């Protein structure tokens, strides 16, 4: 299990990286390496060129910018985990990260790397979907922004061109009184989720739900927002019956089974976790 031969590049700037992407035709970008390096060791990917982003210092940052949290693509998961501003303003992200791998992998793994790897069960992908993240990419054609709903193109494939790289992620912040929950069922602590559910809720002074986002991950090629469940919640007062009914929409999502979890089980988990996550998020609203 040793990596195959490749040419190695470690650009010091985004411009250099873009130029390298433009001049190669079978390149892989190396971010934290926690997914790509195993695939290289197993020789499941055979790039001619490896473009290491770890020397580009400008890509690692967390900034609160008004109602938006801006995070550099190469920001380590461990930095996000420890970030006071993330914890205060976007606790769903903190909650999601607690399920991501282990301290050793979070020390290296990056936000951008996880989003681009786009594992169907990845917690950060589910969080980005729930938070309506906007992904900034740059390439030969310049910079552009991709709403996260359009980011997954197909199974483990983001909607970015071969000559583009992700440079930052913007997370629009919810009100300070919002409630959040990130629940997942994984076989062991730190494993990829068999199913994960992320919920964000806001209530008005009268106690009615005014805003809701529910994402289910692990069922299909990419996480999905459950619009029917979100609609069912709006204007309603939180109750067990309401959450149970809303969660039932998650059972009806398309699902793909594998050797560990048949499709029906994943759908069942989606409904169970959604019900529990809604209750937890509602309890956190104030």
């Amino acid at each position: 299990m040793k990596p195959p031969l490749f040419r190695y590049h470690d650009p010091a700037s985004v411009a250099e990286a873009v130029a390298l992407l433009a001049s190669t035709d079978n390149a892989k970008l190396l971010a934290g390496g926690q997914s790509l390096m195993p695939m290289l060791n197993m020789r499941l990917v055979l790039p001619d060129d490896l473009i290491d982003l770890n020397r580009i210092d400008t890509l690692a940052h967390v900034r609160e910018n008004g109602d938006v949290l801006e995070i550099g693509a190469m920001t380590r998961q461990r930095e996000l985990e420890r970030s006071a501003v993330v914890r205060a303003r976007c606790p769903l992200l903190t909650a999601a990260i607690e399920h991501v791998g282990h301290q050793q992998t979070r020390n290296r793994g990056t936000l951008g790397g996880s989003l681009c790897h786009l594992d169907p069960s990845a917690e950060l992908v589910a969080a980005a979907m729930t938070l309506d993240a906007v992904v900034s990419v740059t390439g030969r054609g310049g910079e552009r922004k991709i709403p996260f709903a359009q980011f997954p193109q197909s199974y483990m494939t983001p909607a970015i061109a071969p000559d583009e790289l992700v440079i930052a992620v913007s997370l629009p912040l919810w009100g300070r009184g919002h409630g959040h929950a990130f629940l997942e069922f994984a076989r062991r602590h730190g494993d990829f989720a068999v199913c994960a559910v992320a919920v964000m809720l806001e209530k008005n002074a009268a106690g009615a739900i005014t805003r809701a986002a529910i994402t289910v991950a692990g069922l299909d090629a990419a996480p999905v927002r459950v619009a029917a469940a979100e609609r069912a919640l709006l204007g309603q007062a939180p109750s067990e019956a309401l959450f149970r009914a809303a969660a039932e929409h998650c059972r009806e999502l398309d699902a793909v089974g594998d050797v560990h979890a048949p499709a029906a089980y994943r759908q069942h988990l989606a409904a169970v976790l959604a019900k529990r996550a809604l209750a937890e998020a509602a309890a956190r609203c104030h």
Partner: protein
Amino acid sequence: MTASVFGQPVTRREDGDLLRGKGRFVDDISLPGMLEAAFVRSPFAHATIRGIDKTAALALPGVHAVYTLQDFMPHLVTERLVVGLPSKSYKQDRNRPVLANDETVHVGEAVAIVVADNRYIAEDAAALVEVDYEALPAASDCREALAAEAPLVHRNAPHNLLAEFAMAYGDVDAAFANAPHVFRESLFQHRGGSHSIECRGAVAAHDAVEDRLTLWSSTQMPHAAQRLLCDLLGRDENRVRVVAPDLGGGFGPKLIFYPEDAAVALAALLLARPVKWIEDRREHFVATTQERDQYWEVEIAVDGDARILGIRGDLIHDHGAYTARGVNLPHNSAETVPLQYEVPNYRMNIRVALTNKVPVTPVRGAGHPQGTFVMERLLDRVARELKLDRAEVRRRNLIPAASMPYTTKLKARGGLPVVLDSGDYPACQDDALTRAGWHDFAARQQAARAAGRYLGIGLANYCKGTGRGPFESATVRVAPSGKVHVYSGAVAMGQGTRTMLAQVVAEQFGGALDNVTVTLGDSAAIAMGIGGSNSRQSVLAGSSAHLAAITVRKKVLKIAAHLLEAPEAELEFVGDSVRVRNSADRFVTLGEIARSVAGTAGYSLPPDVTPGLEASEHLVIDDMAHANGTVVAEVEVDIETGAVKILKFTGVHDCGRIINPLLVEGQILGGTAHGLGNALFEWMGYDENAQPVTTNYGEYLLMTATEMPHIDNFYRETPSPLNPLGVKGVGECGVVPVTAAIASAIEDALSPFGVIIAHAPIFPARLAAMIAQARGVKFGAAATDGAG
């Protein structure tokens, strides 16, 4: 001054180096001019090999050789690894070849070895070896493999039945014909691989000066490996040395002699350069032997008081594609079913099926967990049907202490009757129930259910033959340096065997542990040896070392009495000396004593003593020392997700006299963790074409610290009468009862829904589906419901 170290929790002599990163594992060996190997492995479960083109691989810079079986043939006495344990039950001989020749019968089978400057290049070249395969149909499921129309595992074989035998006594059919109650169970069990964190590995070097081939191999059995290399290569015993360096865990599969051991040795001989091969984890999944599937159809007959009248049934055992050890696994399983219970009539028909999968050989527990699961599931069924406490059903059937030693009607694999040597099984169970809070659990369960939580408690008894004979070697030698050197054919895989033997020997020399050295795992250090398996080393190596140490001690005292001119009874050991009690200045060192019998040309030895200060023992103990125990598991099941959380796990184990409580606890804990993995997580999956589907640690789940509960263990010490130390083995005991106890506890937790556990491992997906079905609630989407 003399201190007893036997029975003391002394910290391990192995720890210092290991904690400093100064262990010496096989991959830590680096020799001048050493090359590295990678194997070309079959991607097909079954295929004809029509040709192998090495051209592109050999053209790669840094590649030294690519060898196939054809290249090795002129240098081999025989092309097969003749390793199968004797048995009259074989229907066909399936020893495996050194490398696949014209047919490959499992994914991962080695087809060619590539030797290069380093492993990176070797892997590059392995990908360039062009093997022309023609895929053949493969047999995957062992039950289906025995069907008349099943694809043949070996294309030239008459069928896929490797062996067939029965284990039987009494008149079981008569017992069933007249029984008040008969209950039938269909059980499926699966155990996975060993997954020592160190994979396998071998380094071979030929010393041209001495014409000696040395193989450092991560093997549990270096003497057997030496024997096989001599047989394969036609070399004399004094021209082959096999050394087991530090082993990063063994757990069974490292006792096998593998094709890679032979291929690496041959490559080193042919290239006249040292060659190293280190198995990577992906190879471990497809090339290191595993345990796997067993299907049981069993019935139990009981009287109105739940006393067992008979057990009968059929077992189909997945053997894999080759015989890499024998039929010992299903034999162990079938022997274990009735072992510690009074079962007057018994018949188990066993069919061992070839499949196009990795060969199956023992993993820690070696078939005993499966037999235990079967028996304990049957007893839970009896309790449920007769509305009795599960522990009470067991108590009525356990062999009582008054019957010990108890000669069962079972036959061990060598043909001897199985005798239970000692133990108080009912008392052990009572002890465990009390310590686990069995008697007040019903109240806790009721309270939890009122709060919507589903708690369950379960128990399992086990009895495990340990210390499989016939012997293990030990030599104790006091050297002119004054050190007490111990040599044994035992092999340390992490159990602390060196510490254990040092304690046994130091006990005879005043407890001076630091003055004892222990050398293990080297065919050149001691002539005979069997090695590490079957929880045998404390029993056999420990006993031989004990007797040898006593012999040497007696001689030391005799010589010291002569030198000190004092009666032996007044002598005592102090550090590396023998002195006259209460006379600090009248002493002689062990070194001086050794020198006095080492011989000086022309001078006489002291009167009445033979030369040298050493003794060798090979104490023969054919009967096995039976350890026993009871474990109680308390679990909570999330009835929506199927998640199982272990709230409490209590064990009472009786492994005879304890040499080192720290090490015994470590062995039980490790075995328990392995058992919990088998119960809840580990699954070596294959699809219907016998392609493995769990070949990395994201897919194959091992126990982690977060999933592992705290374990409360307690010990009883019933000495075994079979060996001079009174000890029993402990290495595998922890694993044996775990799956049975967990199944019992989960079933108890889900008793309101009537969910029955008949499959292991127990996965949440399956559990959740069964619960949902029992509760009559939705599971999957309307469109897919029922698919789960």
